[in-house]
């Protein structure tokens, strides 16, 4: 990536020289005109980012530092309360569980997605017959609309008529109230989320594997390394950069998972599967008397959390680009 960019930059410089030589009557204009044209092409996206990203985010911050009610929302005269909403949210009895569940949901999901994704990537790397087709089929869970996956899992995990409990009972095990018991609700949404996230990890790690030169494996094989040693001594160390990227992106994207949890359990029963994302939605949109301001405060806490990992991701990628 970096090399292509540098290469094309130097070509562009040379081409600029040719153009300037050709239009010798206006020696300095092409460059400045180039800047104008460049920004003219960027103008739509810059305006777009300001109006449809920055402004909603600003409104969100504004919501969180004022005390909005349904009435003042329409009138626009909500009083300024500073960080009161944040204090309120931090002291809320839901904060502890939501924080814990967000952490558990994110870390457990990623641990399984990554491990299974890596194992599958290594397996599919063996290029057997049909491997391409099967790998494509593995993408299906990732492409399905989340509401489709979530509702399918809801019915599969149904206490009385679900196929999962039917399977457990067939093996003589007792059925589990997956979605309705406080002990299992979080596990259920994590299982569904792992299923959805495996393809993403598989595809990225697979592409990482393809960049490892096969000579290294041949050399290791000549030295008498077995499959297990080849994985831990060659594949794993060389895959570390790609793994870091995959994990960090996974973190950023898992932190904000909302649809699956909301559709399967609505964060319940009680707060048994509430995360920051569902809590924020719950406060802002799911009650008859919406609490927009605390909802925005929770949302902003979630942004901060996501951005921390986001910056680590960008930092890691920059470092790898330079290396």
């Amino acid at each position, binding site marked *: 990536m970096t090399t292509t960019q540098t290469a094309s930059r130097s*070509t562009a410089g040379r081409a600029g020289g040719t153009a300037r030589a050709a239009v010798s009557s206006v020696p300095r204009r092409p460059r400045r005109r180039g800047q104008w044209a460049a920004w003219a092409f*960027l103008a739509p996206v810059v305006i777009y980012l300001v109006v449809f990203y920055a402004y909603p985010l600003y409104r969100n911050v504004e919501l969180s530092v004022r005390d909005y009610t349904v009435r003042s*929302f*329409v009138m626009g005269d909500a009083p300024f309360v500073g960080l009161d909403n944040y204090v309120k949210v931090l002291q809320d009895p839901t904060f502890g569980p939501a924080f814990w569940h967000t952490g558990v949901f994110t870390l457990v999901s990623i641990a399984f997605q990554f491990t299974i994704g890596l194992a599958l990537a290594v397996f599919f790397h063996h290029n057997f*017959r049909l491997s391409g087709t099967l790998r494509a089929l593995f993408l299906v869970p990732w492409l399905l*609309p989340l509401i489709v996956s979530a509702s399918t899992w809801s019915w599969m995990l149904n206490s009385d008529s679900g196929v999962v409990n039917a399977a457990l009972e067939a093996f003589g095990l007792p059925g589990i109230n997956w979605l309705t018991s406080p002990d299992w609700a979080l596990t259920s949404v994590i299982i569904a989320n792992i299923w959805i996230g495996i393809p993403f990890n598989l595809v990225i790690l697979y592409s990482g594997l393809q960049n490892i030169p096969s000579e290294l494996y041949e050399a290791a094989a000549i030295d008498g390394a077995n499959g297990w040693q080849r994985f831990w001594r060659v594949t794993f160390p060389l895959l570390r950069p790609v793994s870091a990227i995959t994990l960090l992106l996974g973190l950023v994207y898992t932190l904000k998972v909302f649809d699956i949890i909301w559709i399967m359990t609505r964060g319940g029963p009680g707060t048994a599967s509430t995360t920051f994302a569902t809590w924020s939605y719950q406060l802002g949109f799911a009650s008859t008397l919406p609490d927009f301001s605390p909802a925005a405060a929770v949302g902003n806490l979630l942004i901060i959390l*996501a951005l921390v990992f986001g910056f680590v991701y960008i930092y890691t990628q920059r470092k790898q680009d330079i290396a």
Partner: protein
Amino acid sequence: MNGRRPWWKTVVGVVLTLIMLFPVYWMINVSLTPTSLMRKSPPDLFPIHATFEGYQAVLDQQLPYLATSLLVGLGTVVLTVAISAPAAYSLAKLRPRGRGALNFVLLIAQMIPGIIMAMGFYAIYLNLGILNTVWGLIIADSTIAVPFGVLIFSAFMAGIPDELMNAAKIDGASTWRTFRSIVLPVSRNSIVTVSLFAFLWAWSDFVFASTLNSGGSMQTITLGIYRYIGNNNQEWNAIMATAVVASIPAAVLLVLAQRYVAAGVTAGAVKD
């Protein structure tokens, strides 16, 4: 790889794929199950009493939702490509000052949780009185795809040889003309990739639809399914039939554009 292709690996691969895709199979199986057998325990593993009641219900009740989703998806594609393609051309080829900062902003933009964007949009739309409009939803949905679009387009356009553009310039083409007549046609593959993902994400969106358009006269299929789940707990064949129909774009995408999908995942490495 070395000519020796052990068949047992194919067998293992097929078994793993079947396990992975079991929920998809189960969705189809339930969609074909008659209502009377829905609560049967244990459930039938194969659709031996297949019926199309569920799909009949989809035809009767869900067509308007599907039409809205189609409209929203196409609108999002147009908006996303129109905004991200010129920007990417500029970032990749015209090298404006400050492009590093813009790239950084675009990366960050992808990481903002949808639920937070939804709350900001809700506040703005409420005050402007454009809640529950289809085009309001299209704008919100495009925010999922625009940063991704710029990323994919600029990665692709960086690879277009400069000679091609310089030739056009020497022939007297303006920057805009070069973009329209040279860069865009050459970038066809990346336009396909971006369009596919923009459509799929808009089609699948639930967060924006449920916050910004839950009271409108035109609602999306994701809300259609969500309402279905909320309203009746008996007719899961109809719910699953709707889910199957809602999965069609994903299936089409996979069959027609498999290589673009894989390219999209690895290049952008994003999904909401």
